[in-house]
């Protein structure tokens, strides 16, 4: 039993955090929200590719880093912390298992989008390739961007750049193996859960910093017991969500029999925590955080979006219910 991380895993987290700190500024997130379809800046992605992250899950023999979910969970938390405006989970976690053996013609650093997390496809107009469920069959096909017709869908978090697929031409069949598809979905769900923890942590950090400085009634507002207790509640929510998400990393990496339950629980707990922390952060800030000029809304909206995507907390709670024998319907 060892529920912690190696020095190498911590180092990778630090390296990614450093890259994101310099590339994934809040200005970059704002730029992603405003860019025309297909014109998403790839600067952040290039920087992440430079450190090999694109092929993190690809085996060393195939030219990747040969890592697994345990190595990536801290990295994904950082991706959430910086609200990376990229289909990162889709490209790094979801795609590799699906395109395994079908990599010819797929270059290094390919950005993938997918509808495996729902019919609203994040970055669907910006990806190089799309991984799409077949309407009538349990199968996933690969598409070039040009083979897909889509409409933009106006989203609350515009930096998620949602589209809906309205027409597809022929695609390359990748797999109709339900287990492979389920694993890809599980990885997507897990990746979003990990990002939600990072988003929550970022919002708490911003709040702690703000309430220590902002003064009302002659004192920092962080000295009021009500504000302290809001922050303590946020800390509690994050502290108990994080190990749940990290356990899901272990379950996926080791193919544990409980992985379906563990991944669903991770998304439910992390999503609930991030939404709660977002509301507390907004409340502790007050009106300033209700403006688009202050940065909090970038993280708040992302947290709300990721909670809703890839199955929301209520849906995953039902999966957990089934796994642990809680009855949900009168028989």
């Amino acid at each position, binding site marked *: 039993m060892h529920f912690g991380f190696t020095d190498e895993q911590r180092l990778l987290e630090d390296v990614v955090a450093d890259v994101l700190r310099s590339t994934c500024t809040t200005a970059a997130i704002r730029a992603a929200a405003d860019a025309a379809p297909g014109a998403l800046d790839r600067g952040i992605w290039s920087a992440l590719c430079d450190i090999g992250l694109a092929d993190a899950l690809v085996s060393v023999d195939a030219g990747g880093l040969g890592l697994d979910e345990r190595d990536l969970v801290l990295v994904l938390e950082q991706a959430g912390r910086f609200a990376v405006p990229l289909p990162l989970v889709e490209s790094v976690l979801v795609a590799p298992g699906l395109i395994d053996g079908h990599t010819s013609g797929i270059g290094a650093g390919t950005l993938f989008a997918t509808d495996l*997390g*729902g*019919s*609203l496809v994040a970055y669907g107009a910006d990806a190089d390739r799309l991984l799409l469920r077949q309407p009538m069959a349990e199968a996933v096909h690969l598409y070039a961007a040009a083979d897909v017709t889509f409409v933009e*869908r*106006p*989203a*609350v*978090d515009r930096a*998620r750049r*949602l589209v809906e697929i309205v027409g597809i031409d022929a695609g390359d069949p990748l797999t109709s193996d339900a287990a492979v598809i389920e694993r890809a979905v599980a990885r997507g769900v897990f990746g979003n859960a990990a990002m939600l923890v990072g988003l929550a942590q970022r919002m708490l950090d911003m709040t702690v910093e703000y309430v220590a400085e902002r*003064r*009302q*009634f002659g004192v920092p*507002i962080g000295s*009021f017991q*009500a*504000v302290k207790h809001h922050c303590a509640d946020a800390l509690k929510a994050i502290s108990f969500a994080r190990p749940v998400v990290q356990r899901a990393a272990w379950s996926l990496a080791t193919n544990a029999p409980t992985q379906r339950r563990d991944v669903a629980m991770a998304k439910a707990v992390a999503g609930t925590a991030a939404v709660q922390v977002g*509301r507390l952060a*907004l*409340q502790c800030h*007050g*009106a300033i*955080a*209700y*403006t*688009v*000029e202050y940065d909090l*809304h970038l993280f*708040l909206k992302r947290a*709300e*979006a990721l909670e*809703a*995507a890839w*199955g*929301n*907390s*209520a*849906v995953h*709670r*039902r999966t957990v219910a089934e796994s642990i024998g809680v009855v*949900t319907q009168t028989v």
Partner: protein
Amino acid sequence: MDLTWTAEQDAFRDEAATWLREELQRWRSSYPGGVLSGDTRDGFAQHLDWERRLSDAGWAAVSWPVAYGGRDASLWEWLIFEDEYYRAGAPPRVTQNGIFLLAPSLYEFGTTEQCDDILPKMATGEQLWCQGWSEPGAGSDLAGVRSSARRVDGGWLLNGQKTWTTRGAFCTHLFGLFRTDPQSERHHGLTYLLVPLDASGITVRGFGRLDGDEGFAEVFFDDAFLADDAVAGGVVLGDIGAGWSVAMATTGSERGLTLRSPGRFNAAADRLIDLQRETGRVDLADRVVDAWMSAEAYRLFTLQTVTRLSEGGLMGAESSINKIFWSELDIELHAVAQDALGERAQLDHEWSKAYLFALAGPIYAGTNEIQRNIAAERVLGLPRR
């Protein structure tokens, strides 16, 4: 105890419902491209058109005297109108801050000349009033106001900055607190001023709200001259230096009955039930029921309050729990809807917009933390620190 309406009240309800249904259809059909949010520049113009329709038919402020454009309606009729207004799906009132926040203070503290001049123009939308309370350093701590008004010949010289001024970029006038005694501190030495925004030295800069609309504004005063006769009857509401007590009366109504009529929540709760049925989300049943029951509790609480007011009672510090209740209810109503929508919660639509708007509820009009302090100290009598 009699929880039925009179035949006259039922007739009033029918008249309001019929007019709203028909006029809303006419209003909407005159914008084939769709009605935009009232907190955007283009949408504001559309909503002003709606306000003029309300005003022309005498529905802009039903409880006001007929002479000012109202119907002399009782509080009961006001409640009925609000019920029907939200049931019909009519839009948020862009004139709200004037009609619901300034007007009560005018009735209480204004001179006849001020009322005669301002209120009719407010009802017709000729004057559009925004609120100038908050400043960068004075939010929850409203007594920290630093914007100043210095007495000069024939008027006042204004300096300083207001912020979080809702729809400030689209309004014509601002009401707010200014420090007229430079030696004063906290809630002393403040004066409630009525300020046309076209005075030289005033700059208004709109900025974006969380929900994406340009709903906020900053207002900068740079030696702006406010002539004593800029408003008929004078630019000072109440007495010079007594602005705090005038403002408190207004914030009372902001927190209390007038800002949030139950119709809004009852209508949202009914729509939530429809949504739950459509989406078949049986797992959300209890949360839907709880939200619906809370909206109903809020309606019943309001009926009791109006009964008391009708018998000559006063709104007191109880308005603080009122504000906590509706603001938390509003979030939950829309959070359940978002959960029912699943991935579609990500999209920009009426439910998600209303959810984001609801998130502001525990902040504006006195944060819920301040309201809980007020409830504990002034209603329950717990000791101050």
